[in-house]
């Protein structure tokens, strides 16, 4: 549907506007591209003035990462994000379905609890978890991170999947009940296959949030369970400003995120507002 205010403008004006938008977009992405370029530069080239646009790219920074403890942190990030996402889906999807199909009086408090746990500053959870983990010996463990990532993942799953189920027709389920299927049978055989695309998008969003986390990992891990974002920041503190290596680490951390976001671009806004706005 076209409803643009500019619709009736002349051809030239439209072309000029488009050119303007393209130029603006490129300018806005320059900071991001700069980091990408830097990850292929040697340290001399990083400091070179005037900056050379054409230089011989080197993979040394990436090689340097490979031989450091970075691969371990990267693996930690992957394991923790995937495990927490899987757990949240396992419990959250049936919960969201129930919430969508039942009508109950406690709906408002549940909604508020879900949105608040998405909105609360991470430090609110970090203090109690830090104290509890000290006592339970869960500091610097992957399990500890998996659990604390549930604070936002569960609410994300319940919220997004509920609005997804709300928009799914009930007629198929009702037909299954009439044929004598139990609630769980209906859920597994009828509802889940229909919900598969929604579940996939939700899973990727949960993964994104878990992967991007910095605060929880900064405070709850040291060496063993350190995640990739914390590892990159540690390069800044201890390794005497090896900018190329920092840039390479940053690029590695953002790579999975960029791939995942392109896959779910249509759901992103909806996911970021925890479904409070229909995208």
């Amino acid at each position: 549907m076209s409803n643009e205010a500019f619709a009736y403008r002349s051809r030239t004006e439209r072309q000029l506007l488009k050119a303007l938008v393209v130029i603006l977009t490129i300018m806005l992405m320059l900071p991001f591209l700069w980091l990408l370029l830097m990850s292929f530069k040697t340290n001399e080239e990083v400091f070179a003035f005037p900056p050379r646009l054409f230089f011989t790219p080197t993979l040394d920074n990436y090689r340097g990462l490979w031989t450091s403890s970075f691969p371990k942190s990267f693996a930690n990030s992957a394991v923790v994000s995937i495990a927490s996402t899987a757990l949240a889906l396992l419990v959250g999807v049936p919960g969201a379905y129930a919430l969508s199909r039942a009508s109950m009086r406690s709906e408002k408090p549940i909604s508020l609890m879900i949105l608040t746990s998405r909105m609360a500053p991470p430090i609110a959870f970090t203090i109690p978890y830090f104290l509890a983990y000290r006592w339970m010996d869960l500091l610097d463990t992957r399990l500890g991170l998996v659990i604390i990532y549930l604070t936002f993942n569960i609410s994300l799953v319940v919220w997004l999947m509920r609005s997804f189920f709300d928009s799914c027709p009930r007629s198929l389920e009702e037909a299954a009940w009439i044929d004598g299927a139990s609630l769980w049978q209906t859920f597994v055989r009828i509802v889940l296959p229909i919900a598969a695309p929604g579940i996939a998008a939700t899973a990727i969003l949960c993964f994104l949030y878990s992967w991007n986390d910095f605060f929880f990992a900064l405070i709850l891990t040291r060496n063993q369970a350190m995640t990739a974002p914390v590892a990159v920041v540690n390069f800044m503190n201890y390794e005497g400003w090896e900018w190329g290596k920092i840039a390479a680490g940053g690029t590695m951390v953002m790579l999975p995120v960029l791939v995942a976001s392109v896959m779910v671009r249509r759901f992103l806004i909806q996911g970021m507002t925890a479904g409070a706005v229909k995208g």
Partner: protein
Amino acid sequence: MLAPALALLIAVTLAPTLFLIVTSLTPLDLTKPETFGDFSRPWRNYVLLLEDRRLHGSLWVQAKLTFWTVTFQMLIGLGFALLLNMRSSLLQALRTIYLIPMVLPPIVVAIIWKVLYTPDISPFYQTFQWLGWNVPTIMTDANWALTAIIIADTWQWFPFTMLMVLSALQMMPAEYVEAARVDGASSWQITRYITLPYIKGVLLVAGLFRLIDSIKAFPLIYILTDGGPGTVTEVTNYYSFQQAFNFSFLGYSSAITVLLVALTVVLSWIILRLVGWGRDVE
């Protein structure tokens, strides 16, 4: 089916929040084990909140950061949305690019701007130097440090407003614009009297989301300025982090955090009132 999800949600979020409230009533200090579970003067932390100048300063920094980032993100986001709202396959493709800053891990955004703000390696500073301009290092300049954070945060999040407005604009019935067109309205009048009122609600929600998120500002501040110079970029969240994990005053930090959580609950409640309680209202 609902029970496991609710039980887990209560276990991982509600229970820790109650625990936070409990610790806020103790003078818990990690270096002094005897302070654990000392409820002799439960309101002491909250009385201290009232007298703590540094806390009040951090609230003011928070207010400034929130005001400027939300304002810029709304204005720039709205401007870009109106500009990109053309039927064109090229611009459709460009929209995806605007997702990049939003989805980047916050620490990567912080590193990007750390590079651009570091005079030795920043293309900006090198250009300024070449032009003979003397530009202060804005991360470490007390007058500019907060601006440095605001610029980086705006860069990351204006696409959020932009994409929300764009998706609202796509749902706007074309008849509105055409009817006004027939009546002889100019582009500007259409934008002002038809488009803007139509997207008012979306703008409000986008603003509220950014407002709440700005309370959580952390990675940018941690990496760019560490709350400094002095305390000029120390927002309340950051101050609470310092109290808990640098000074190890977890009890007092809990009290500050309870304050922040209360604020979040109120703001979330407002959002839910505005958009319905997760149900389609139309």
